[in-house]
């Protein structure tokens, strides 16, 4: 791993990093990956069948009143004007 990899990962994760942060993250990542690498030593020696069943959990698609108001959304929204929520243009 090198500094370019850290920059690339940060870009994918949309996190701005300072040069200092990049360097310390590079050192940490190498340290951590070096440690977790030991799982490579595990080779499956037995055929394990999970005891749990993975299944979808559905609920009825029924109309239900919810505790909700436009105010709740607006009050948390970083920017709004005249009752509209403001975001930057996407296109």
């Amino acid at each position, binding site marked *: 791993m090198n500094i370019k990899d850290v920059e690339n*990962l940060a870009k994918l994760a949309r996190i701005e990093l300072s040069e200092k*942060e990049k360097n310390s993250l590079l050192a*940490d990542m190498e340290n951590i990956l070096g440690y*977790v690498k030991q*799982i490579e030593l*595990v080779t499956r020696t037995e055929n394990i069948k999970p005891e749990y069943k993975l299944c979808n*959990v559905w609920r009825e698609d029924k109309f239900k009143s919810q505790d909700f108001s436009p105010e709740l959304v607006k009050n948390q929204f970083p920017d709004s004007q005249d009752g509209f929520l403001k975001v930057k243009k996407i296109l």
Partner: protein
Amino acid sequence: MLDLKNLTIEKAHQSFLNGEFTCQKLAGEYLRVIKEKNKELNVYLEVFKDVMEQAKKADKRFADGSAVLMTGIPVAIKDNILFKGHKVSAGSKILENYTATYDSTVVKQLKEAGAVIIGRTNMDEFAMGVSTENSAYGVTKNPHDPKRVSGGSSGGSTACVAMNGALVALGSDTGGSCRQPASFCGVVGLKPTYGSVSRNGLIAMGSSLDVIGAIGKNISDVEVIFNLIKGRDEMDSTSVNLREGQSFVKNEGQSFTAPIIGVPRHLIGEGMDHEALLNFEETVEKFKSIGYAILNIELPYVKYSVPSYYVITPAEISANLARFDGIRYGIHKDGENLEDDYLRTKGYGFGPEVKRRILLGTYVLSHGYYDAYYSKATMVRELIVNDYKKAFSKVHLVLTPTTTGPAFKIGEKINDPVKAYLEDIFTGPANMAGLPAISIPSGFVQREGEKLPLGIQLIAPHQREDLLFEVGKEFEKIREK
């Protein structure tokens, strides 16, 4: 002044009933302690303004006869549990201005029972950490020795109960976050079976591991909280109702059936504090002295628990924390364009450990590394589940220390993430396998003139919290002997 140190939920309830003191009086006592100690220890990030109002309502329920066991009981909640109309920040700058828009299911249950929610407790940012040193709001100091950490990530909740800042508290546990700080602070910490408690309204970290847990001074109090919050909730599709299990300690009122306790000897010893190891051996002897059979067991893949945990958890974190982008709520840092807004907001709002784990998660999920890391880790996880499945065909419970030693000093592990990750060595496996586990105080060691608590951990098969409580209570009786 009330004797908060020896107060239990049952005792408080009796006192409310017989008029010895009121809910308001008790809440006032806790507020007094908080005023005295919180500044130094940094346990609460916020004490809610409506505490006395809540206590007044609880008193009314005693007057009109609608009170239940939890009515008027002062509870603290970890800062990642939503309480409508109150701030909740997950110990992060990115949510410093966020107010919960709905009640989490656990808070709804507390409110319905009439519990008094005192405030929100400090934690490692987004529950990532073992010391609360990763909180954006400063470390929570250990009430037993303020030079030391209270553990984490639920260190605020455990220190809160230890300093008598609330009678009980809620935490969350992804790799040991209720049990390790409970051990450091000398209190009981329960990590229930994965899915046994609704996570609706808990700010997510690792969704295949997270569970809300209970913290108290003794097992009975923790059991009361668990019984209140457990069960299926339609707002959390991973939640389930517990099966009714057979109690073995008192088998249908017949003769006492001695439980068999498994000890994975091959995992215990290396890297452990000498006195903590000695304390553990004493614990084993104490169980033997009341007729329990102790069996040495092998859990061959459990040694890979921490390394596989630190692949799976960051992977889930990188997905779960993508939502904090400064667009809809939380802190917003303005940039040139939309992408720039994201970059600046996350760069400013997240602390070092959160950034570390998001990047690590992004890496292990990326094309070319997915098989080597993520796939492999999920395979190891299945092997760990299988290890316990085999063990539980021979023993009723598994016993280990909770931690490798007592609380460490503030700053001791801050610059070495792997060293901090190894704190999960005994606690992480229960999360990987979804098993219920509990940390119980087991004694003290002396360090530089201070008495520091130690803890032991019991792990049970899925949905067998009842066994943890039964055996744990037996241990509480013989602990001092």
